Each structure stands twice: as structure tokens, then as C-alpha cells.
């Protein structure tokens, strides 16, 4: 008898993130219905699925921005606390990148990247700005350090936002549709920065509709529908040989194969 379960290379390690029976409702509406998932260190995990299926809700609960109603998140072996002052200590170890960038408009690119360490980690300003310069170079924006967000393109703003998240030296990066608000011509520059981070071995959880990116970069893909996990597996399986009919339909709608 052959083992038909898909291979998950990272699965020999201790999980970095575990969701156990997570639930979330908005009034009578169940947004997340008993979700249990595991994310291992160094993995790139893509969340895909139709709009409204709960992907963002799961991501926002991961760092406690919008806490779950039931179940728990275990991060690096410890249950995510609920008390605001405790959850903050965990949250700073997770970086988050938003669909609308959410750069701080009253701060320059450099200040946007430096502000996390300065306010949260009490890093010396000069040192934080030196680190910020290195991170801006990493995302290819050294020459834009003194620009305000309003003077940057969408793709550039999102790259600054990625640098801002990296500045806290997070153990996991959470991306919520990082390219959905971008003009088509600037999507590529953001995806290549993300690809480079993946190649460094960073743990990344990415909500995305960029299927070719997910196919190419993800180690593991999780398909959501109506607050439930429809199917999960390596990208080859999800994109080439999905086992669930609804996955095929969803990918078909996106024009995938």
C-alpha cells in the first residue's frame, strides 16, 4: 500500500503557528467555522479561496487584531494571550502587510520603517534609521528614503510596508492580498520582493489571488470556502490535481487551467 497523503517537507519540525478549532462570528454570520491548521517554520503558505471565505478574518485573528470567538492560536508553542498588553508582546513578533499598504502618511519612507523599533523596541533613533536604510535597500528603495508615501507609487508603498514589517525582525510575515490594490504594472516588483523573502527561508502566510505566484512560491496551499478549509496540499496537488470538485470550480473561475 502506498501512502497517498501529500508530502509536507517542513512537517518534521515543531509548528510555528497552529490554529485549533478556531471560530469567529459576526452576529449570526459564521465567518470561521472550526478551522484547524498548522504552519511550520520556513514555510510559505498561501491562503486562497473566494472573496468572503474568511481568509482575512483568519489572518487578523492570528495576531489578535480581531480576536477569535473560540478555539486557539498557538504561536511558537504558546497560546496567543487575550489580554491586550500580553497579545502586544506576541504581535510584535509577527509582521503584517495590508492590502492598502497603510503606510503612515505623515512620515517619510525611512520614518515609516524606523518607527516600529523606535516606539516598540526602544531602539535608538540613529540605529533604527540605519537599519531602516538597509531594509529599504533590500526592497530596492534606497533612493526613496526621504519620500512621503503620497509621492510613491502603489508598488513602492507596498515595498516600504514590507520593509516596515521586516524592521521588527518578525518570526512570521502575514500578507493580506498584498498586490490586490496595485496597478498591474507594479504587481511584479512586489511579488519579486516577496519571492526573495521566501528564498531567504522566512515563514510567510500569504492571502492571495495571484495563482501563478502561489503555484511557484508556496510550499503549502490552503483553499477556503465559507469559513471552512476546502482542501490543503502542496501547490502541485492544488493546482494540477485538486481532490475536491469545488477547488476545481474556484480555480476555473479564475481562469486557471
Amino acid at each position, binding site marked *: 500500500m502506498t501512502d497517498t497523503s501529500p508530502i509536507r517537507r517542513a512537517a518534521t519540525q515543531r509548528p510555528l503557528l497552529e490554529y485549533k478549532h478556531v471560530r469567529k462570528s459576526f452576529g449570526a454570520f459564521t465567518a470561521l467555522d472550526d478551522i484547524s491548521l498548522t504552519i511550520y517554520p520556513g514555510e510559505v503558505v498561501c491562503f486562497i479561496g473566494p472573496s468572503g471565505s474568511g481568509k482575512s478574518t483568519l489572518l*487578523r485573528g492570528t*495576531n489578535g*487584531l480581531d480576536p477569535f470567538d473560540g478555539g486557539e492560536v498557538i504561536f511558537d508553542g504558546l497560546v496567543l494571550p487575550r489580554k*491586550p*498588553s500580553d497579545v*502586544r*508582546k506576541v*504581535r*510584535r513578533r*509577527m*509582521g*503584517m502587510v*495590508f492590502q*492598502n499598504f*497603510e*503606510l*503612515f*502618511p*505623515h512620515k517619510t519612507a525611512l520614518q515609516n520603517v524606523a*518607527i*516600529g523599533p523606535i*516606539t*516598540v523596541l526602544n531602539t535608538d533613533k540613529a540605529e533604527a534609521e540605519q537599519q531602516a536604510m538597509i531594509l529599504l535597500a533590500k526592497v530596492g528603495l534606497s533612493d526613496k528614503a526621504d519620500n512621503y508615501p*503620497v509621492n510613491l507609487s502603489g508598488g513602492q508603498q507596498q515595498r516600504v510596508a514590507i520593509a*516596515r*514589517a521586516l524592521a*521588527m525582525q518578525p518570526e512570521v510575515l502575514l500578507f493580506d492580498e498584498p498586490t490586490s490594490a496595485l496597478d498591474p504594472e507594479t504587481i511584479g516588483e512586489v511579488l519579486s520582493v516577496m519571492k526573495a523573502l521566501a528564498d531567504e527561508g522566512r515563514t510567510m502566510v500569504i492571502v492571495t489571488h495571484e495563482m501563478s505566484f502561489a503555484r511557484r512560491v508556496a510550499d503549502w496551499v490552503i483553499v477556503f470556502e465559507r469559513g471552512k478549509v476546502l482542501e490543503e496540499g502542496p501547490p502541485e496537488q492544488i493546482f494540477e490535481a485538486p481532490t475536491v470538485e469545488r477547488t476545481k470550480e474556484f480555480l476555473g473561475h479564475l481562469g486557471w487551467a
Partner: protein
Amino acid sequence: MTLDWSIVWLNKGLLAEGALMTIVLTVLTMGLAVPLGIVLAFMRISKWRGLALLSQCFVELFRNIPLILIVYWSFYVIPILVPVQFSAFTTGLIALVLCVSAYNAETFRAGINSVRAGQTNAGLALGMSQFQVMKEIILPQAARRVLPILATTWVSLFKDTSLVSVIAVGELSHVALQIRSQSFRVLEMLTAMAVIYWMMGYPQAKLSDWIRKKFEVKE
């Protein structure tokens, strides 16, 4: 009908004192109504329902009553409520502060609320506390939106200080109207009043326009 403008010149000292009093009243009112407005705005958005309700009642009361009524009301009611005898000046100042701090509270609240929730999330996601988010992210952005409105309020306040003349506070209007009724030089005094108010008010209005332009939010 002959006009005798010398009456204005003869009383220049008194008018200057009145004008100075108008400025003092404006500055003091704003100086008190800004911090009070901030306190009221924070009460309004606080999670303690009692505080929020208290602030809301205060704001909705004083924002929706004519200022002149608040002035009269202060004049007659404050002596009943507190045993201390306030001067007309202090009474007028209290009335102005009650009214303007209610306006300012709404200005600050609107400014804070105008910063979209995503900005708070971005700050919290970095690990900031609510307090740090308020200080580093929300207030600096709110300030840009609040300042032009405060400037407009200032310009209105400068003119509205004339209303406290009804309780004999010796600011420009009161002084000028006193001279008018003693000299019967009605047209001269009213014209002089208009000219002095305009000369003082115009630069302020221009400054306010400049502030509005400079702080226009581009996003």
C-alpha cells in the same frame, strides 16, 4: 446731517483698550477651549459610557444654544450656582469657553475619527500600544485636519466676543457702543467699530486661509 469724526480720535485711547480686551478675550478663550475640547473629545471616544455620555450632553447642549443666550445665562445663573462673585470679564470668558470648547470637542473628535481604522491596525500590528498609536499615528494626522477648522473657529470667535458686550465686558463693542450712547455720534462710532474689527479680523482671516491651504490633506 454732518459727520464729526473727531469723536473717534478723541476716544482713541478707550477704543484701543477695548480692542486689546477683544484680543485678550479671544486668546484666553481659545487657550482654555482647546485643552477643554481635547478632554471632551477623549471623554466622548472613551470606553467608559458614563464619561462619553457626559461629554456628549455637554457638547450637544452648548453647541445648539445661541451664544448670546449662554452669555446671559452665565451672567444670571453662575452667581446662583457658585458663591464666588465673578467679574463681568470672567463671566463673559466662561460663556465663550463653554460654547467654543463644545465646538472644539466636535472638531477634535471628527479629526480623530477621520483617520481610517487601517492606520490603527498598522500601528497595533507593529506591536504599539493604543496610547502609542494615538500619539504617533492618529493625533499627528488628526492635527492636520483639525488645525484649519480651529483657525476658522478662531476667526468666528474673534467677532463673537462682541456678544459679551451685553453684560458690560469692556471689549471693543462695549466701549464703542458706550461712546455712541454718550455722544450720540451713532454713524461715526459704528463705522469706526467696523473699521477696527475689519483691520484686526482681515489678517486673521488671511492667516486662516493660509493655514487651510498649507495643511490641506493630500493622500
